[in-house]
């Protein structure tokens, strides 16, 4: 019940942002990007556990008319913080989202999301099918935009803690265009909360800085 209520709140936030979206989301034919995330994982199962560490990622997106397919892969090493004797964990995250622009300022999508925490004793895996909603709005004409992305796991499976019960998350941040270049810098805050069947939770948050090559934005700038 709490999860469903949160879903409503999450999409409410996305919808709240819509009136402020001043320009259409423009889909570039090809987007390539690389990013670095300072990740923080708070796992509250039998005991509370905190892991932190850098995660490097890459993404690619292909667009055709109003349809976009985006794939992202990230990997890093997380170090336990404040827990004696705990091992480091390798974090692997892969996601594919197929989106369609339903309005000039809103796109909806869906896709699989795989996540794994690899430890010396075993690997904890998450397999989800997520629904996504994304909106963007312009802050500084041609230079800065804000993006809010929310997702909800329609199905969430895990091989630990009795299995997955649900997951949802979102990210929001700035897209800063570097003038006269085909690149943009993304500064995003991401948060994701997963719930296990046994009542435990796993919260993943991070600050991500990425560099994105965006052809269509480059063309728009050149035209100006």
């Amino acid at each position: 019940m709490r999860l469903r209520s949160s879903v409503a709140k999450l999409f409410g936030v996305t919808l709240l942002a819509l009136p402020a979206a001043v320009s259409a989301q423009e889909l570039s034919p090809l987007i390539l990007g690389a990013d670095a995330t300072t990740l923080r994982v708070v796992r509250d199962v039998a005991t509370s556990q905190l892991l932190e560490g850098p995660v490097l990622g890459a993404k690619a997106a292909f667009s055709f008319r109003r349809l976009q397919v985006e794939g992202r892969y990230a990997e890093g090493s997380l170090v336990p913080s404040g827990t004696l004797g705990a091992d480091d964990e390798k974090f692997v995250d892969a996601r594919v989202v197929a989106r369609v622009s339903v309005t000039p300022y809103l796109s909806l999508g869906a896709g699989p999301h795989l996540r794994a925490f690899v430890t010396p004793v075993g690997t904890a895996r998450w397999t989800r099918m997520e629904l996504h909603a994304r909106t963007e709005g312009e802050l500084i004409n041609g230079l800065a935009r804000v993006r809010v992305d929310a997702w909800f796991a329609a199905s969430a499976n895990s091989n630990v803690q009795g299995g997955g019960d649900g997951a949802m998350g979102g990210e929001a941040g700035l897209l800063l265009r570097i003038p006269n270049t085909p690149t943009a810098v993304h500064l995003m805050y991401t948060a994701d909360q997963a719930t296990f069947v046994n009542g435990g939770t796993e919260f993943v948050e991070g600050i991500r800085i990425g560099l994105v090559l965006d052809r269509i934005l480059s063309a728009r700038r050149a035209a100006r």
Partner: protein
Amino acid sequence: MTNAMAKATNGVMTWLKVGTLLTLIMLLLAPARVLHAQEPVDPLAPALTSFNDLDYDIAATRLRAALALTGAQRLPDADRARALMYLGATENFRGVRPGAIDAFRSLLILDPRYRPSEVIFPPEVIALYQETRIGVRATSAQIAPLSEIAIPTDRLPIKIFASSLHDIRVRVTTSLGAPERILYEGVIGDSILVSWDGREASGAAGRPGRYLLRIASRSASGSPEREVQIPLEVEHVPIDTLPWPEPLNARSLRPETVVRANGTKQVITGLAGAAAVVLLPTLVGATDASSLRYGVAAGISVAGIIGLATATRPQPVPENIAFNNTLRAEWTQELERIKTENRTRLATVRLRVRAERAVTVEIR
């Protein structure tokens, strides 16, 4: 008594009516008589009457008298030519051959193209005229009394007629001391067409002033015999240049920038984005989120504030800029066209040439 008075009154009335009628008829006829009286009188009529009456002595005397008229009474060239022809024929009939030849020679100098009527004059007169014509080297020129020529494109046409085959030399001289400009030097048969390009011998455009078109007829030995001189009054016609196109103004140009927003949307977007970042952990149900996200929220807020400040700045309108650029390019193109046209016009000298009456001068 009463009857007698009545008869007398009727008689007077009848005479009055007749008188009035006659007066009206005379008034109606009077203009016709006046018009008839104003018809031009042929000045050669008395001489020609004598000629037709075969009274050649009197005809010769009258013709010479007519030819001797000067001033306002001077015969027009056409009448002079006719008088000379009749004089030549008269002298021929009188048996004074030198006088006939002299008259024909004068006629040919006056009008080298003159051809006597074979209906009026007998073959022996025509034969003597043709014989004289062969020996006379004279020319006349036909030139428009007023013409305009643009240098370097136009030329002033001059048609020259000759009495017989001989050498001529056509030149333009000036009283300003410039060297003469030779237009033609060579043989003329019946006629030739020469032209003057309005330039002096140096190649420079003719200057305002008086020029002299001189057509010299030369003998078989090459020495000049007589010369037809036509004074030419030359003046420069002012050249009009095209005005430059009206400069582009605000009415013809579209605004290239526009203030698209008042910043409200940027503020709302920034607040919504910052709120999303701050509230995201709470919305997903997390209770122990870090404070890292506040940095991102602050960044969004700052961008929103900058957006508010810059939203009121005029933003370029690409389609209007393109439209104006096209307009400016067309204006510049038109300006260049007019400049080129004006350069061409300024490089052109336009002469107005007024030809005066030709004068024939005997050289020897």
